[in-house]
């Protein structure tokens, strides 16, 4: 048996007596076995099979292409992007990129910041959320763009969630900068999301999610 045959059999779980005999007498294969075991552990781990959110590609493209680059003037970009329906989405991307770049390069003051993309309910919406961890909770500033004003009789609500536990940070009615407070930490409640809520007595999140850090 050759070493590469042993490796294939070991990885596929088909190693039988002849493979084990080979392993017993082959120092090269014995030396490779920890790497093979590590590979098998990784292949069984769910993280190896998960993909990033589909909209992350657009966010990366907008983040880079919307940034000022020595090789391309902003005027050229704007001229190209005005020519089609796609231009509207690209322009929204530039706004997202500008927000993201702004969030990245501004003077450090917040303890954390995260971008919150729009969902299928509001694909042009985006927000940058900045947070300050305080002893009794978290102060957050939400900078929202591309979101239509809430229809009459409704408003937007910003949530911190840990699986099925949801804590509201407050409500707002449309794009702009909103400052809020929530009595939990982002570490304990990592999912940040915004829903469109009817003004009623129901205090649970509606099914209409417009922005979400965990799509």
């Amino acid at each position: 048996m050759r070493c590469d045959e042993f490796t294939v059999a070991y990885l596929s779980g088909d190693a039988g007596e002849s493979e084990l005999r080979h392993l017993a007498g082959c120092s090269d294969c014995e030396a490779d076995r920890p790497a093979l075991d590590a590979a098998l552990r990784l292949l069984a781990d769910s993280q190896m099979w998960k993909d990033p959110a589909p909209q992350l590609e657009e966010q990366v493209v907008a983040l880079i292409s919307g940034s000022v680059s020595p090789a391309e003037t902003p005027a050229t970009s704007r001229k190209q992007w005005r020519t089609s329906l796609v231009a509207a989405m690209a322009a929204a991307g530039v706004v997202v990129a500008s927000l993201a770049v702004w969030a990245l390069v501004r003077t450090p003051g917040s303890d954390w910041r995260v971008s919150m993309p729009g969902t299928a309910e509001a694909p042009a919406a985006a927000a940058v959320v900045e947070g300050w961890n305080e002893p009794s909770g978290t102060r957050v500033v939400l900078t929202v763009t591309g979101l239509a004003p809430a229809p009459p009789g409704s408003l937007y609500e910003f949530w911190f969630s840990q699986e099925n536990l949801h804590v509201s940070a407050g409500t707002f009615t449309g794009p702009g900068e909103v400052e809020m407070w929530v009595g939990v930490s982002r570490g304990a409640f990592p999912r940040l999301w915004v829903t469109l809520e009817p003004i009623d007595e129901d205090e649970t999140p509606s099914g209409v999610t417009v922005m979400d850090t965990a799509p």
Partner: protein
Amino acid sequence: MSDIERGVSGTVLRKFAAGDPEAVRRLYHAYGRAVFTTAYSALRDRGLAEEAVQLTFLQAWRAADRFDIERSLGPWLYAIARRVAVDLYRRERRHLGSEPLEADIAVLPASFETTWQAWEIRRALQEMPEAQRDVIEATHFLGLTQEETAKRLGLAVGTVKSRSHRAHRRLAQLLAHLEEATA
């Protein structure tokens, strides 16, 4: 040079450095999943991993005009991704703990020890034909037998066996490459 790297030429990299959207897309398609997996395997948090992807490509863009196109692009991007993941891990530790000791922040968890393997295996899975990848996923992630895999995928058991053999041979070739790279 892998199939992925063959798709990213020096011209694409120069356009990427200039912020050309199509070039950004090409690079993202080639490496985005591997960057995500590297960050996710280390940080174990989807939101942080996606933030790491954005920061990795942003930092790569900022450094792209200084990249030597004679070098292999993958290890360079991997190094950026891992460094970004380390920075994010330390940032989160600072903010989640009350007052962690600096030495505590300096020690990285075990999940960071296998980020290179995670990168390479994810790239191998990405380069593999989908039919072979499905068999690998069913076998290793779902833990199915070949008979169960055949039923799940609507294939004959013999077909599953042959695909499994080809897929594992491909993985074995990758691991040989991994051994060379880390030697």
